[in-house]
Every structure is written in structure tokens, then in C-alpha cells.
């Protein structure tokens, strides 16, 4: 334990844990707000000053753990996570809910811990930690729907952890090591089952196609501040793990390409703007996964840079939509519109976020996405490259235009909400400043990246290409809008893979139960429903009155004793040869 504490002392996680322990004892208000601000700052400082290499050695059940593996890849993720926690803390200054505040600290802390985990067991512990801590941000909404959503989220997140630990166990029995290094090896054909399970676990948290839907299901269900926090950590932690473990795995390029494409269409017709942003988040993850799949130094730099920028501008977008929700009580496009009249500052910040995610030159998305696109083009993946360019236009359509347009312009909803609270404006302002700053001075970001960068984003050709792509797309939007082809916003939801377990599975189970029930009741000639019959059967044997649970049967026990002894004797004396 002492060993563990001293190991924790080297990690930034300690401060989040301490903060989470101390926080409930501070009265809600300024003191608490300051605590939530100070902890990420300390964390960033610890990360900044940490010596590179392995540290925080501890051991568990005979396995050596490394709690603090510091290299440039983990530093960049650790820093942006700390920054995200800091900005979210400003944004959540008004919060008086102890549960959410503690959950936020623990969530950020475990996510940062995962980034510095040098071995798979530590990773697993933090992996489950993020799942457990983050679900409270969903439950904090306090409605029955949020509870169910939270349960679905928790089951999938914990499930990912279970798959991870199973994979780690298999990996350990095969290689005898739990060190968290690259699994790529000689490519997928050389992987054991364990490696595939680990990839599957990463894939779930990274919202791979068909495994993605927990994200769009849960993030819109969280609280105003909770969604901002959620958007930063879990998926980017998974991206980090992929970059660390599976860099250069070619098929991930195609997985990533599909990830950039399909959310575009779903986002376009989605009504809840926070869900639109969740799809957009999914699409942006696709770019990062492509970078991981390409796996060159440039591509990994691109992945890290894009994760960095993405956390900032996605937070900014979630913050602005959250501010609208905070003032109007809804985040549905069909209920909003015309808010620029009374929330102009929020609108400006939202547009900065939208411009960043759309990768307009001078905004942060431009300098990071270019790295990935160039890496893809360098390595001659024409189809993937075409898909990514297509997806770039798609990003403009749902995040770049849809979010600000339908919130702040479009038809006037008649809502006249007050401007967002000051602390939210400060948080959005800082984030927006960071987005622009990175866009104008990309070298500051590049200096943080894992590999040395000699990439210049602002070439004449590059700027021109990007401007053409975006401005022509804007023109298309303007024309389609003018001539009424643009799909109008209407209330409703869209089916996604969650349909399979929210609708199909219950239907199948219900149907099977009906069938079995019909057969069973026919067999029993009774009126019991099938479920009751099975339960009765089980509890008849195992229940308090059942045969397996009877207590008062001394004679029977002695009989058992005799039977067992007899068996043992027969086995030993008769069956086995002496």
C-alpha cells in the first residue's frame, strides 16, 4: 500500500483523487470551484515537470505495474486532458451538485491515469474507473430516461473493460508480459485472440462503426456540464491507446474512413443538437483512427494534434449548445432558432468552434487535419483520401453550418433567452481563443507532438484547396436553402445500431418468451406465464423452501456423509490399483 501511494505520488492522478476526497468537505461555492480549477493546473504542472521514462513502480499479485510511463505521446494527451478539465471546471462554476463535481474529478483523473499507464493492468483499472466515474454525469440529470441511458452506457463501458481484462489475461499467458507497448507486430495475421480482444475493447470506447452507438445514446443524455466533460476524455483515451498499441495496423485506415463517413448522414438529419455533435465527434474520431492506421510519424503526429484540437473545439461547441440548453431548456434544432438576437456572444464562440471543426484556415482544425490528410496522401491511399475529403465537406454540413445556423439563425423560434452566464462566457472565450491561437500559430502545438515536425500547413496551394472545398460547399448550402431543398428540422429521432438492443433484442426475447411460454403452459397445462414457471422451478429447488436450501435434515446430512465416505473409500480401495 505504501508502495502504491509512493507510486501514486509520482502521477497526476493523486491530485484528482485528493481533490475528490476533499471536495465534499468544502461548502459548495467559490471554495469548491477553486478546487476544481486548481487540481487540473497541478496536474498539468506535474505532467510538465515529470521526467521522461518509466516511473511509479508498484506491484500487484506478483505483477510489476508502471503507474507513470512518460513519453511525448502521453505528455500531449495528459496536457490536453488537464486543459479540458480546467476549461470544463470554469464552465461548471455554477454547479452545486457534489456528485457531479466529484465524478468529474475522478473521471478526469482516471483518464489521465490511463494515459500514463505503462502496463495493461493499470490501464484496465483506470479504464473501468473512467466508466464508473463518468456514468454519474449521465445519472445526474435525474430523469428516468437518463437512468436507463446511464445503465446502457455503463453496461457497454464495463463490458469493454471486461473484454480488455480478458484480452490482457490471454496476452499475459501467451507472452508473459503485461507491458503496454505496441501489439502490431507482424500485422493482424500474427495476433492471438488476446490481442484481438484488446483491440475490440479499445474499439468499443473509440466508437468503431457498429460499436459506436453508446456515444450518441449517452452524451446527449448527460447534464449541461456533464456532456462537456464526457466529450473530452473516454474516446480520446481510446485513441491514445490505439496510437500506443496498434499504430500502423492497416485495416484501421479503412475502419477510420468508414467512421468519418457514416456519422455525417446521421448527424445531418438528427434533431437534438447535442446528438448532432456526438455524431460529429464520432466522425472526427474517424480521422484520428485513420492516422493511427497509417502509423507513420507524420500520421501519428496528426492523430495527436487532431485529438488535441478536437478536444478544444468540440468542448467549445458542446459548451455553446449547453449554454443555450441552460437558458432555454432545450437543445433541439426544431425548438431553437433566431437566438443571435439575445445571445450574440455565445453565437460568436459557437461560430469559432464551427469554423475550427470545419478546418477553415486560421482555425485549429485546419492545422491538425492537414497532417492526417497529407499522411494519407503520402502513403497513396486514394480511396481513403477521397473519403476523408468528402468527410471534410460533411463536417462543414453538420457541425460547421447546422449547429450555429439552426441555433442562432434560421426561423425565429420566438425564444429570447438571456446571454449565457459570465463564467460560461469566460470558459467559451478561453477555449475559442485557444482554437484561434493554435490556428494562427500552429508551431506551438507542433512543438508538443510526439515526433519532430517539419510540416508547414500554410502553403498557398493548401489554403486554396481548403478554401475552395469549403466555400463551394457553403455556396451549395446557400443555394439549397434558398430553393428549399434543405431538409427542414422536425422533431423525431433516427434509428441507429442501438435499435438492435433497445428494440430488436427485447422483441426477440419477448417473442421467445411468448413461444416458450405457450409451449410450456401447454406442457404444464397450467396458467403460469413462462417466466414464472421457470422461476418457480429454480426457486423450487434453490429457494428458501427448496431442496437445496433445507437446513433441518441432520439425518440426510449424515447419509450424505456416508455416501461421500463410501465413494472415497471405493475409489481408493477398490478402483485404484495398489
Amino acid at each position, binding site marked *: 500500500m505504501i508502495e502504491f501511494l509512493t507510486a501514486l505520488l509520482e502521477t497526476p492522478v493523486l491530485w484528482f483523487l485528493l481533490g475528490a476526497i476533499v471536495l465534499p468537505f468544502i461548502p459548495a461555492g467559490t471554495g469548491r470551484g477553486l478546487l476544481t480549477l486548481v487540481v487540473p493546473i497541478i496536474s498539468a504542472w506535474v505532467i510538465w515537470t515529470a521526467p521522461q521514462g518509466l516511473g511509479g513502480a508498484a506491484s500487484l499479485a506478483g505483477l510489476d505495474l508502471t503507474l507513470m510511463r512518460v513519453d511525448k505521446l502521453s505528455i500531449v494527451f495528459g496536457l490536453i486532458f488537464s486543459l479540458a478539465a480546467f476549461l470544463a471546471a470554469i464552465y461548471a462554476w455554477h454547479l452545486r451538485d457534489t456528485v457531479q463535481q466529484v465524478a468529474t474529478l475522478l473521471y478526469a483523473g482516471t483518464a489521465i491515469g490511463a494515459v500514463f499507464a505503462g502496463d495493461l493492468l493499470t490501464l484496465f483499472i483506470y479504464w473501468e474507473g473512467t466508466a464508473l466515474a463518468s456514468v454519474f454525469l449521465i445519472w445526474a440529470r435525474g430523469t428516468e430516461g437518463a437512468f436507463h441511458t446511464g445503465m446502457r452506457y455503463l453496461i457497454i463501458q464495463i463490458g469493454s473493460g471486461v473484454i480488455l481484462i480478458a484480452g490482457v489475461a490471454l496476452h499475459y499467458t501467451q507472452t508473459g508480459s503485461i507491458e503496454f507497448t505496441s501489439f502490431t507486430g507482424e500485422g493482424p495475421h500474427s495476433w492471438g485472440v488476446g490481442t484481438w480482444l484488446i483491440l475490440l475493447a479499445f474499439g468499443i470506447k473509440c466508437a468503431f462503426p457498429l460499436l459506436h452507438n453508446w456515444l450518441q445514446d449517452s452524451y446527449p443524455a448527460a447534464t449541461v456540464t456533464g456532456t462537456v466533460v464526457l466529450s473530452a476524455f473516454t474516446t480520446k483515451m481510446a485513441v491514445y491507446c490505439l496510437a500506443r498499441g496498434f499504430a500502423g495496423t492497416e485495416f484501421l485506415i479503412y475502419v477510420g474512413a468508414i467512421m468519418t463517413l457514416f456519422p455525417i448522414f446521421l448527424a445531418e438529419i438528427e434533431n437534438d443538437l447535442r446528438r448532432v455533435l456526438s455524431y460529429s465527434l464520432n466522425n472526427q474520431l474517424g480521422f484520428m483512427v485513420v492516422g493511427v492506421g497509417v502509423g507513420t510519424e507524420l500520421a501519428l503526429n496528426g492523430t495527436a494534434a487532431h485529438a488535441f484540437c478536437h478536444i478544444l473545439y468540440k468542448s467549445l461547441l458542446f459548451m455553446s449548445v449547453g449554454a443555450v440548453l441552460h437558458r432555454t431548456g432545450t437543445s433541439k434544432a426544431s425548438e431553437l432558432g433566431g437566438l443571435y438576437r439575445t445571445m450574440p456572444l455565445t453565437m460568436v464562440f459557437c461560430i469559432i468552434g464551427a469554423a475550427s471543426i470545419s478546418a477553415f484556415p486560421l482555425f485549429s482544425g485546419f492545422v491538425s487535419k492537414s497532417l492526417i490528410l497529407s499522411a494519407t496522401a503520402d502513403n497513396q491511399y486514394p480511396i481513403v483520401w477521397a473519403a476523408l475529403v468528402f468527410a471534410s465537406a460533411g463536417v462543414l454540413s453538420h457541425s460547421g453550418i447546422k449547429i450555429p445556423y439552426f441555433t442562432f439563425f434560421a426561423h425565429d423560434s420566438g425564444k429570447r433567452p438571456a446571454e449565457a452566464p459570465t463564467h460560461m462566457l469566460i470558459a467559451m472565450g478561453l477555449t475559442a481563443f485557444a482554437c484561434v491561437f493554435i490556428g494562427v500559430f500552429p508551431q506551438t502545438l507542433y512543438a508538443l507532438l510526439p515526433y519532430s515536425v517539419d510540416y508547414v500547413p500554410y502553403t498557398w496551394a493548401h489554403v486554396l484547396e481548403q478554401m475552395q472545398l469549403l466555400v463551394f460547399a457553403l455556396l451549395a448550402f446557400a443555394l439549397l436553402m434558398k430553393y428549399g431543398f434543405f431538409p427542414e428540422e422536425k422533431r423525431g*429521432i433516427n434509428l441507429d445500431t442501438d435499435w438492435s438492443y433497445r428494440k430488436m433484442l427485447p422483441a426477440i426475447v419477448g417473442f421467445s418468451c411468448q413461444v416458450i411460454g405457450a409451449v410450456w403452459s401447454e406442457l404444464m397445462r397450467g396458467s403460469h406465464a413462462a417466466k414464472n414457471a421457470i422461476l418457480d422451478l429454480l426457486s423450487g429447488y434453490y429457494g428458501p423452501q427448496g431442496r437445496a436450501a433445507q437446513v433441518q435434515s441432520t439425518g440426510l446430512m449424515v447419509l450424505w456423509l456416508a455416501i461421500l465416505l463410501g465413494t472415497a473409500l471405493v475409489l481408493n480401495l477398490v478402483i485404484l490399483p495398489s
Partner: protein
Amino acid sequence: MAKPDTKDERPISPTGRKLTVLEQPVVINRMIIGLALFCALLFLADLAHIRHGKFAVEDLIGFYGFYGFAAFAFIIFATKALRAVIGRDEDYYGDRVVDAEDYPPTELELKEFSDD
């Protein structure tokens, strides 16, 4: 595009008031024309600049512009079809789901804009 609600007498912010010009049809049309002109400018800029992209198609003049335009249009038309297939009512999964219930107002600060 919705028309501005001229009868609405409720206060709005000064910045917002300036921006209301954007809702006049004339201004909108001018903006679209401006956008088109900008597109043309970018297209011409492509002419002035001989490029060597990684792929052959990149060197086509205005490739990115047309690709962007086509992609956007395709997305819009495809999604209209897609919505017809997968669109559902908000209470499709029952009335105890996040989509169908209101956000509980306890934690929110719902507030109307006022001048002071």
C-alpha cells in the same frame, strides 16, 4: 428562410439588433451573390497557380471546389432519403427516454433577456 417577426416588441441586444439586417431578403440575396463571386475568384486563383498534388485528380482546375459542392449536395439529398427510412417519432422507444422527456429545470437557469 423564416421572416423576421416584426411584431415582436421584446428587447434584444444591441449586437443582435444590428444583425437583424441579415434577415432581409435583399441582404440574403446579396450574400449569396457575394459567395458565388468569391467562388469564382477561388476558381480563377486555381488557374493562376500550377499545382502538383499527390493524386492526378488534384491537378484538375477547381477540383476541390466542385468536389466540395457535389459532396455537400449529395449529402443533403441522401439524408432526405435516409430520413424517410430511419426517421421515427421521439417516443419510439417509449415515453421514458431522454428524447421524449423535458430537461429537468432544477439545475438550469432559464432566463429571458432583459435590457438591464
